Every structure is written in structure tokens, then in C-alpha cells.
């Protein structure tokens, strides 16, 4: 018991680790602020392509989405950061993370948006078109608001997944929160900084998860 407390819940070490872990948190948040909007926009565009009437557009979108959902994000990240330089493209860790997450997130967000678009009854678009709205106006004012609302809990769940997944950025030495905590651990031979980081993830994500459950209940009712 004593050993667990000193190894994992050592307050003294946590206090010492705190500045570095908070610095890491800043980078985690920065990654989130960049990759979540990118993934949402990419996912929405891919979803629109995946329900397009043009067969070539539709099938290429579906193929890309399948590909990036099937490739493990860790492998993708290592490939972009360590593999692409052999093809003459050297990226900073942050750029590699942004691109890797953009591809991975977009694929997941695309599947969610696609389900949302398909959940909107065809009659909605017909009614809008019958009043003279263009295809784009119909999409923006009638279809997308309903599609998004129908899959809001899924979108938010995926945002939570993405926030947790940013810890993968540590493999390309980007100093996000887990990387910072790991660094302090290797210096102190003590795992408490990791527990500290986990605690911060929990404090950050728990309210979000609660919120999602409430949305789900409201949509179900």
C-alpha cells in the first residue's frame, strides 16, 4: 500500500511535475483547437462527397474514409513524421500531428455526418426545393441543421476520443501533456506525474461526457 502511494500518488512529485505537465496541457489544448475544427470540416466535406449523386466522387470519398478508419492512427502518425522525409517531405512534429489527425479525424467525423445526412427524410429537401431554395440553400438551412442535431451526441463522443488520442503526439516528441508527464517520470523514476496527467484528462473530459449523456437522453425522449 505504502509503495503504491509513493509510486503513483506522490503529492510532492506531482507538485514538482505540475509546471511541466501544465505546459504540456497547453500544447494538448493547442493540438485540440487545431485538429478538432479541421476534422469537423474535413469530415463534413467527405460526408457530403460520400452522399453525392456523382458515382466517382461518392466512391472515392468512401474509399478514403475506409482507408483512414482502418489505418491505426499511431502508424499513420509515425509514417507521416518518420516515413515522409524519405520522400523528401520533412515536417515539424506539430505539422505531422495536425496532418495525421486531420486524416484520421475526418474519416471518423465523416462517418458520423454521413449517418446524420442519411437520417434526414428526403421530403425535407423536396419541401425546401419546392419553395425555390437552391440545392446549397437547402443543405445549409434545412438538411445540415437537422443532420447535425441528429448526431450531436456521436459528434461530441468523437471529440472526446480525439482529445484522448492527442496523447499519441508524444511518439513524435511533441511535448503535449502525456509526453511532459512521461518526461518527469523518467527523471524521477516515479509514476505519479502520469497519474496527475490522467487526473487532468478526467477533470477535463468528465463534464463533457456528462453533457453527452444528457443530450442523448434529450434526443431519445
Amino acid at each position, binding site marked *: 500500500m505504502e509503495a503504491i502511494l509513493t509510486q503513483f500518488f506522490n503529492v510532492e512529485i506531482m507538485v514538482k511535475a505540475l509546471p511541466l505537465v501544465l505546459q504540456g496541457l497547453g500544447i494538448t489544448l493547442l493540438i485540440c483547437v487545431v485538429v478538432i475544427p479541421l476534422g469537423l470540416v474535413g469530415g463534413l466535406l467527405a460526408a457530403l462527397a460520400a452522399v453525392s449523386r456523382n458515382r466517382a466522387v461518392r466512391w472515392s470519398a468512401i474509399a478514403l474514409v475506409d482507408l483512414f478508419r482502418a489505418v491505426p492512427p499511431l502508424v499513420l502518425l509515425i509514417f507521416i513524421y518518420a516515413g515522409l522525409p524519405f520522400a523528401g517531405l520533412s515536417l515539424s512534429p506539430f505539422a505531422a500531428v495536425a496532418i495525421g489527425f486531420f486524416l484520421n479525424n475526418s474519416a471518423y467525423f465523416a462517418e458520423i455526418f454521413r449517418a446524420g445526412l442519411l437520417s434526414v427524410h428526403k421530403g*425535407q429537401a423536396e419541401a425546401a426545393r419546392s419553395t425555390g431554395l437552391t440545392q446549397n440553400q437547402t443543405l445549409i438551412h434545412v438538411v445540415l441543421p437537422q443532420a447535425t442535431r441528429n448526431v450531436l451526441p456521436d459528434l461530441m463522443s468523437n471529440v472526446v476520443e480525439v482529445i484522448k488520442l492527442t496523447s499519441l503526439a508524444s511518439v513524435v516528441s511533441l511535448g503535449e501533456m502525456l509526453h511532459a508527464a512521461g518526461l518527469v517520470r523518467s527523471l524521477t523514476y516515479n509514476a505519479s506525474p502520469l497519474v496527475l496527467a490522467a487526473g487532468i484528462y478526467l477533470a477535463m473530459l468528465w463534464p463533457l461526457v456528462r453533457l453527452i449523456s444528457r443530450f442523448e437522453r434529450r434526443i431519445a425522449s
Partner: protein
Amino acid sequence: MTQAAQEAVAPPTLVVRGLRKSFGSEEVLQGIDLTVARRELVFVLGPSGSGKSTMLRCCNRLEEPDAGEITLEGDPVTGPKVDVNQLRRRMGMVFQAFNLYPHLSALSNVTLALRKVRGLPRPEAEAMGLTALDRVGLKAKAASYPAHLSGGQQQRVAIARALALEPSVMLFDEPTSALDPELVGDVLAVMQDMKAQGMTMLVVSHEMKFARDAADRVIFMDAGRIVEQGTPEQIFETPHHERTQTFLARFSGRG
């Protein structure tokens, strides 16, 4: 010219010539010719699968016709250079399933096209929207969302949504088929009121009593063709065609 004289020389509101439409190998419209005069209420009758709804949906090109010509007040509806969005705002459509936008209030349902298609500023659009809701007796429900309205109220809001654009013709696609019987009356009353105010209407429906009371002309369709047409009296009392007789016999006792 007087207004009456102008109307006399003006082209008919809706003209359909040689309309054909297939889904796969099945030809659901096999050459439809139809003229709807100004202020006329034409009632379309026929068994399900006869092509009534498809004919209606071809008029505003929710279905793309395979062949044929359609004009609205003399302006071509079909053809490659036609701005279909501009034409559609001159043709109101009411659907069997109402198709109100569930994420918008009744008033916003009505004002969306006024603002986005006609480009009216919000206050003006809302004033027109309230007038349209008033015409269907639902001004008090302007702020309500579709989920909080009865089926009959939803359909009346849908009518207001089409009416607000001041269309030249209103197309009704089985407007009361999805309603509980006790809610049908309110919707038909609104339609009758529109007819009294001089709206040109093309109505696909099974409400025979409404056809008798309000229609100028009844058309009977079967298997993608117009089989017979005439005044309500002619069609209901002395139908000539055997298929019309069989169809009406099944409906006698109803409506």
C-alpha cells in the same frame, strides 16, 4: 384593358403537353395532356400507382420529365435554360407528409423561402409570414415548433409556407391522406377558402366530397393516362369509362 380582358388573353396558368416519365422499365406517365385555367380547381382522381403524384411532381420538376412540355403562365418550365428555382417559387406545393422543417418554428418555416429566395429582410418576411399563417387560422401558433402542432395544424402551416410566396398555382399531393379523420375538415376548409379567394389549384386527393363541393373539373387517371375528365357531376353521376365506374364504385359509401 380591363382586368377581365387581360385574363381572357393571358395564357392558361398551367399547361402540360405529352408528359412522359418512366421509373426503370415501368412507364408511369404515358403521355399526359392537361390545362389548368386561371382560378380553376382541377381535382385528380385515380387508383394508387396511376401516376397522379408523379404527374404533380413533374409539374415543378421534383421529378424530371422524360418527355413533354410544361408551361406556367406561358413561361417554359421544362427545357435546359430554365431557372427552375425561380419557377418553383411561383408554384406552391403541399405534401402528404407535410414536410415541415422540425428545427424551425411555424413562422420560420413560412419565412425561410421569403428571406432566402425572395431576399426579403426579416421584418418584412415575418409580416408576410404572419399574414399567411393568419389565412390558415394559425397566427397564434407562429412561435410553435412542428412537434407541438397537430397533424392538421402542421398541414395548414405547410399550406401557409407555400401561400406566403404568392404562387400562381398550388399543387396538392394527397394533402389529407396522412391525417386523422377528425383533422381533415380544417385542412379542406382552408383549401376551400383559397379556392374562394381565386387561387388556381391542382389537387391530387381521395376526398370525393371536397371534389364535389369545390372542384371545377375532375380528372380520372389510370395506368399513366388521363382516362376521363369532366365536371364533378359528370364524373361522379355519369362516368363513361368502365375503369372510372369500377373505381368510383369502390369509393361509394365514402366521402
